[in-house]
Structures are given as structure tokens and as C-alpha cells.
């Protein structure tokens, strides 16, 4: 274990193992991150409920992507593709902004299996 005299002053952390200018030209997943980067370290251990995504109802409006405070909504080929559970804190903001009926994102217990969650999905609500 490190001692007080082995840390960079100012508790400054360096997220990259490589030159930042070069890293900018690469896709995020191709950059070399240090263990001090929040990309490498999970910051989701205090989550008690998780959002589950249901593609059946999703209209790819990306409201959830815009509002997620932890940039934990994953997107691929212009489609919402799920949640990054290594960084999601379980705040539920994505669920509250999802405009579909029924919602395409819902909070479930952390231990709930995704396939079981999908089976419990509610029907369209009548107004």
C-alpha cells in the first residue's frame, strides 16, 4: 500500500496512460485508461435499484441519454442499446423522463434478472 509521501500533491489523478492529444483521436474504448480513471473503476456499488431497458416500447428519442447525470445510457448505431451498469447510480432520472406508454425504462431491484424484469413489464396505461 502507498504512503502519504507517494501520492501526487493535490490529490490530482491522471486518467490516461498515454498522451492525451493522441488519445483524443481514438475512440473511447481504444484509449489506454489508468486504474484512477472512472472509466476503469466501478462507481456503481451504492446502487440499490437499477433501470432496465425494454426495446419493445423504446422509440429512440434519447431523452434518457440527454438527462442521465452519469452518461450511463449506451447507444449503438443510433439506437438506445441499454445501460452501463458499471457507472449507473440508480437515480431513476432516465425512467422519469422516458416519454413512452408504458415506459421503456423501469426501475427494478438490483438482484432482479433482466429476463424476469421484462416479463413483469406493465401494460399500456389508459388515461
Amino acid at each position, binding site marked *: 500500500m*502507498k*504512503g*502519504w*509521501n507517494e*501520492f*501526487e*500533491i*493535490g*490529490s*490530482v*489523478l*491522471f*486518467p*490516461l496512460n498515454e*498522451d*492525451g*492529444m493522441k488519445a*483524443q483521436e481514438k475512440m473511447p474504448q481504444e484509449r489506454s485508461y489508468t486504474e*484512477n480513471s472512472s472509466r476503469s473503476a466501478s462507481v456503481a456499488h451504492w446502487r440499490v435499484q437499477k433501470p432496465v431497458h425494454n426495446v419493445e416500447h423504446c422509440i429512440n428519442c434519447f431523452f434518457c441519454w440527454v438527462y442521465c447525470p452519469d452518461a450511463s445510457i449506451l447507444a449503438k448505431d443510433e439506437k438506445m442499446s441499454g445501460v452501463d451498469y458499471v457507472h449507473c447510480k440508480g437515480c431513476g432520472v432516465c425512467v422519469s423522463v422516458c416519454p413512452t406508454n408504458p415506459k421503456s425504462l423501469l426501475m427494478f431491484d438490483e438482484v432482479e434478472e433482466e429476463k424476469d424484469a421484462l416479463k413483469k413489464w406493465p401494460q399500456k396505461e389508459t388515461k
Partner: protein
Amino acid sequence: MASKYELSKIEVWDGNMAASHALRQAQIDVVAAYPITPSTPIVQNYGKFLSDGYIDGEFVMVESEHAAMSACVGAAAAGGRVATATSSQGFALMIEVMYQASGMRVPIVLNLVNRALAAPLNVNGDHSDMYLSRDCGWINLCTYNPQEAYDFNLMAFRISEDMRVRIPTIVNQDGFICSHTAQNVQPLSDDEAYAFVGEYKTKNALLDFSKPATYGAQTEEDWHFEHKAQLHHDLMNSVGVIEEVFEEFAKLTGRKYSLVESYDMSDAEVAIVALGTTVESARVAAKSAREKGIRAGVVSIRSLRPFPYKQVAEALQNCKAVAMLDRSLPAGAMGMLFNEVGVALLQNAQNKAILSNYIYGLGGRDMTQEALLNIYHELNENAKAGKLTHETQQFVGLRGKKMAFN
């Protein structure tokens, strides 16, 4: 390019103007400020210098002192030379960010023009804000007159930005008695001053995109202690750099400063320990006391933090009686100088001097020559008796029934 300011060999400046010129000469990148009495003219003059073309840097007007210090932290982390000024309530509002600045080790220079803290509301000088700054992890330098306010501002950048230090630094001066009292000040020319302060060197600058850095990381019981202890270690060790800078400044100007200043101490039997403008008043009083046959001296400190523990004891080691004068409400304890200087003496000095504590000058109440002479008389009585002839803590010039403790 900023225009050069033509200065005379001797200028008539108050402490605020002296500080403003030193800030101008240091060619600061960012000053973020929210003016407050009595420090207002520092940033007001600075703003005028900027409008008149004497400064190239940015002046950021913010909505509060909390925002001022926050902007300073951001600018310093980004990689610029940064300074600001404040007093009293403004400083109290900054205090949260003061700890951020020292924890992040960003070298900022803060002019703290000392003023009382409300309530009751008061704009005059005492050392309440200086005492509030004691534990916030900054280097804390003390000046007694406008010349020193100028000199210490230039030296503060050198100390704070030194790669062996990188700790933000406060320069204290007394509200009004120093900040608004014009005296002769011998400035350096713009070129000489800038050559002394030197080009700003960055360390882990946020704007260095080749090495991205994260400031403001969170640590809990796992690592918090180590980071705080590291700051303490480097603060304690900054003594060496402070003394180096004092030396170099003396070579340039002939004005020699020490961590502990001794006045007439070589044969002194009794001494007053004080801070701020009271140091000069006490020197005058010591002279009069000597005319009355009391071997009186004055000891004062230049750096409240790092505290010159051994040096202050050394300066007082041959005294029989010592009075610590605190210009801040101790609020349920003995005064800070009494506690800190007293323990330094207890640990380091051979003789056991008789110690006393005087609380004085709150909210700008005058400290008169008569009151200072009276303290020397009481010290002399204590020295002769070999024990305290009154209670340890007394209150100078307090109206009403006599108050004293311990």
C-alpha cells in the same frame, strides 16, 4: 503587451495601493474578486490599472466571495497565476473554498485585509479573520505596514509557486491602520519586480491536454488522512523556501525579513509578542519603557503558518516575563498567540518565563501607548515577583467591570 508604470523611488501609498501595485507587477493571469471593506481598494485599483492598459490578465467579477475563491481555484488549476483580496465576512464566505485550494495545492495569493467579524457588524480592523484562516492549510504571512504589504505580496508568489511548495498563500495586513494609512513605500521598478517574481510555471495544468488531470477527487477513511498529512508535511517544510525567498529579497532590496522579528531583544527581560500594526506601536512603547528602566523588547512573527515554533522560543528564551497580545475574541479559551507561543516556550526554552495574555483592539478599538506601557509595567512586576501578579488573561481598554481569567 501591458504598459510599464513609471514609479518614483519613493511613493506615498497606503497598504491597499501597495498591494495593488505588487499584484500589477506580478503580471497575474486571473484575478477574480468581490470587493469588501477595507480590502476594496486593492481590487478597485487593480481594475483601474487593467482599464488603463497596465495589465494584460483577466479580471473576473463574480457574485460573492465564495464564487471569487472558486474562480481562483479553477483558474489556478487551469494553469494561471492567480490572486485576489478580501476581508472579514467575505473571507468567512470563502472559507469552504480555502480548504479546496490548499487541498488541491493550487498556488493562489490572497490579500487578507484584517477586519472584525460580525455580529455586531463592524468594518474596522482586528485579527478575527486572520485567526479564522489558521487551520485552512494556507501559508499565512503577516505584515505590519504598507512597505511590507508590498514586499510580502511579491514574495508570496515566489513562495507559493515554488515547485517544492505549491501551497496557496495569504498576506495579512491590518484593516485601515495599514490598508488606509499612506506612508513612504520604496517600490521596485516593474522590470525588477517581475524578474524577482519570475515567469509562472505550471504543474498539472488542466489546460495541458497532453496530460489530462482530475482535480477534486474524493477520498474517505481509506486515503484522506494521507493526503491531508502530506499537505501538513509540505507546509511545515515550506519554512526553508520562505527563508530562501527572504534572503533573495534582502539581496535585491536591502530589506531583510525573518520568520521571527526581534526588536531590542538582546538583553530584554520582558517582552510583548504581537501581530500587525501593534508590533510597531509596541516597539515605540518598548523604547519608552527602557527610558523608565524596564528592559523591554518586542517579538513578532512573519508566518503564522508555518508557525515558527523553535525560532519564536529562541527569541524569547532569556525573558523573565512575556505577554502575548491577541486581537481576536478567544471565545472560551486563551488567545491563540498565548497558546502557541506559550507551548513553544515550554517545549524549547530553558528558563520558565511568566506568561500572560492580553485581549485587545477588537472591532478597531485603539491600542494606545499608555496601554502598551501599562503591559510592560505589569510584565516588569511579574519578572520582579517571579510569578504572576494578576490573572493570566486580561482585556485591554474594556469598558465595565474588570474581566480576567485563569
